[in-house]
């Protein structure tokens, strides 16, 4: 029962070594030794050479800036009553997804900021950006307090149930990314009685586009909006939990037709300009997805403009799919107003990206949804921006334990 050490970089070690207690100077919430280390990592991630090679590391670098970290700790403290003290939970076991290279860092960094000892399973299938991050983390160790290397561990192992079981039994909190299947898979391994899971199951996300908001926007603004939407959709092959898939056009049907045509044309131009394309395998995948949806009914028309872009006109909101149809496949539905979405929304719906609405309309929609679904309502272009509140959880809050003192 061994694992390969990725951080601190090293050879193969027995799992038991990961679980050795660390008695010396335990970490605290917002521990300066962790803040210093993360801020150093931020600087390295924002180095132009690296950010050019892996643009997604740039957003991670911004997320880890000292100011952001301190603000997150302050925000946490601000939510606590005067009689409440926050402490680290203890040991946190993170199981991030293989396909999003940087999630493991966000999840881990907030937990480290909360003062926890962490064990992160880095998938053996992880991609180049993950390796780049690990390199940066290891490079930062030289200047870091030794407590960082003792308490913050990232490991890689294959599908070894024994390792997973051992780490699960020994943690106070288990963080499972990677969708329903990963959650179900991991849940076979029991936790200690006082421990619990923080899970990130399969999610679906949508976009809402106001017909009147579009009409009011300048041609320049419309182009910007299409580019922002293209970034949201294409960055993770439209397969991230927050990637918008279906676009709800909100407004009267007749102008909505024209808005759709113009939006699709601008989207096409934006995708072309970025040079994004899909390969033959993805092109076939998209046909399988779109034809399958059409077979089920509710697709009035489907159009394959080119491999990178397919659009489907749905007959009504109920026909909206929640599964992935392949990169660059956009169902469109026209609804008269935002309230039409209320009965449709479910628990698994995560992000609603918006353009052209007044803030009050969006808040009103959130109130009507009442937390039954949709955890984030963000403007076009911000779908994939990771935030410390994710999937309805205030992560830093999840990573601490509260003690109350009443006199």
């Amino acid at each position, binding site marked *: 029962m061994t694992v390969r050490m990725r951080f601190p970089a090293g050879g193969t070690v027995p799992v038991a070594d990961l679980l050795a207690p660390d008695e010396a100077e335990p970490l605290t919430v917002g521990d300066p030794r962790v803040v210093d280390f993360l801020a150093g990592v931020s600087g390295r991630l924002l180095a132009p050479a690296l950010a050019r090679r892996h643009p997604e590391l740039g957003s991670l670098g911004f997320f880890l800036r000292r100011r952001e970290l301190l603000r997150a700790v302050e925000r946490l403290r601000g939510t606590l009553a005067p009689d409440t003290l926050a402490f680290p939970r203890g040991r946190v076991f993170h199981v991030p997804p293989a*396909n999003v290279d940087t999630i493991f860092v966000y999840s881990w960094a907030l937990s480290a900021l909360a003062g926890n000892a962490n064990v992160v399973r880095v998938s053996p299938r992880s991609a180049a950006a993950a390796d780049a991050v690990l390199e940066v983390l290891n490079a930062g160790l030289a200047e870091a307090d030794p407590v960082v290397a003792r308490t913050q561990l990232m490991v890689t192992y294959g599908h070894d149930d024994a390792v997973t079981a051992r780490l699960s039994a020994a943690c106070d909190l288990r963080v499972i990314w990677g*969708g329903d299947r990963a959650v179900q898979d991991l849940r076979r391994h029991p936790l200690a009685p006082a421990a619990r899971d923080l899970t990130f199951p399969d999610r679906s996300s949508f976009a809402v586009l106001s017909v009147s908001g579009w009409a009011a926007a300048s041609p320049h603004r419309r182009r910007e909006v299409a580019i922002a939407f293209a970034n949201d959709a294409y960055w993770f092959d439209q397969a991230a939990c927050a990637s918008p898939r279906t676009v709800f056009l909100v407004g009267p049907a007749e102008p909505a037709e024209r808005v759709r045509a113009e939006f699709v044309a601008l989207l096409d131009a934006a995708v072309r300009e970025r040079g994004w394309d899909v390969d033959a395998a*993805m092109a*076939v995948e998209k046909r*399988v997805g779109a034809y399958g949806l059409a*077979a089920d009914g509710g697709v*009035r028309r489907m159009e*394959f403009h080119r491999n990178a872009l397919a659009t489907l006109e749905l007959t009504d909101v109920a026909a909206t799919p929640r599964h992935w149809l392949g990169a660059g496949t956009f169902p469109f539905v026209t609804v008269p107003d935002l309230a039409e979405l209320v009965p449709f929304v479910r628990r698994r719906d995560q992000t609603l990206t918006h353009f052209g609405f007044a803030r009050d309309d969006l808040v009103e929609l959130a109130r009507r949804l009442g937390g039954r679904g949709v955890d984030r309502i963000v403007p076009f272009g911000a779908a994939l921006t990771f935030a410390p509140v994710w999937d309805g959880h205030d992560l830093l809050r999840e990573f601490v334990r509260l003690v109350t003192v009443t006199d």
Partner: protein
Amino acid sequence: MLTDVFTLTQPEKEKRLRDELTALVAHHRRACPPYARILDALGARDDAAALADLPWLPVRLFKTRALVSVPEDQVIRVLTSSGTTGEVSRIHLDREAAATQSRMLARTLATVLGPRRLPMLVVDRAGVVGDRRSYSARGAGALGMVNFGRDHLWLLDADDRPDIDALRTFLDRHGGEPFLIFGFTFMVWTYLYEVARAHGLDLSQGILVHSGGWKKLADRAVDNAEFRRRLGADTGLTRIHNFYGMVEQIGTVFLEGPEGGSLYCPDFADVIIRDPVTWREAPVGTPGLIEVLSTLPTSYPGHVLLTEDLGVVHGVDDGHWPGKRFSVLGRLPRAEARGCSDTYQGGTA
């Protein structure tokens, strides 16, 4: 070599197939509502000027949706493909479609096997046929084929080891007259070729029919030409026919001609190579995705299918048999997306 299914020149075939397949499009559109909804959403018309204009379905759709064109009580057999990812195609046959597919397969193979049943060597183990109600790809291939032979020898024992003594006995008895050899390409190479060469066995009267692709042999640098050359040189086996077919178009096989190297389309079937960017028909010599067309699928809309195999047409009406000559070049990799979820399966919400 006598044949009654490799007879039509390409212009003759296109005219005939266009009419028959156009009629099938209309038939399936009437009989299979999910198929009709797909065609409606595509805006597909009922008539097509050319074969390449007929609407196609991605073959994997049979793994994600039930597509049937006959009432449930008329389905007498459901074929399933093997799938490495756990997804399987489900192909529904009624009595007529089942009879037609086996008859047309027989006529196609009779072209190279002759009209009589030959003694048959199966490069597999008897167990693969197993349960007749649930055919694996290996089992279905073997089961469909066993009917074309007699006095069968299953070469492999339960542990997939070739039984040399039984093979010697079979060859002593039947090796002096034409006999049929059937197997998956890599198994023929691994279990028959290497064994026959090692033991100096004479396979010169054999007629080999094989399929399955070259992927597993690629690391041994064995392609079709090398396969034929070495079998001929080392075992005397020269009558070798590769074939290409799939459970989603059961009964239709594209058969390698006696000269080797090219697959031919029987009169009731054709292939179109599509450019995977423009989706238009690729010219002769240009590789693309293989679309297979066949008039046999009447009980399910499998008459025009886009496969995930890459191929190339070498020539038209210029080979041993009339029509298109083509090769299969390999398989398209499965699309993989980045994303939060570790697994993606089409059609699962």
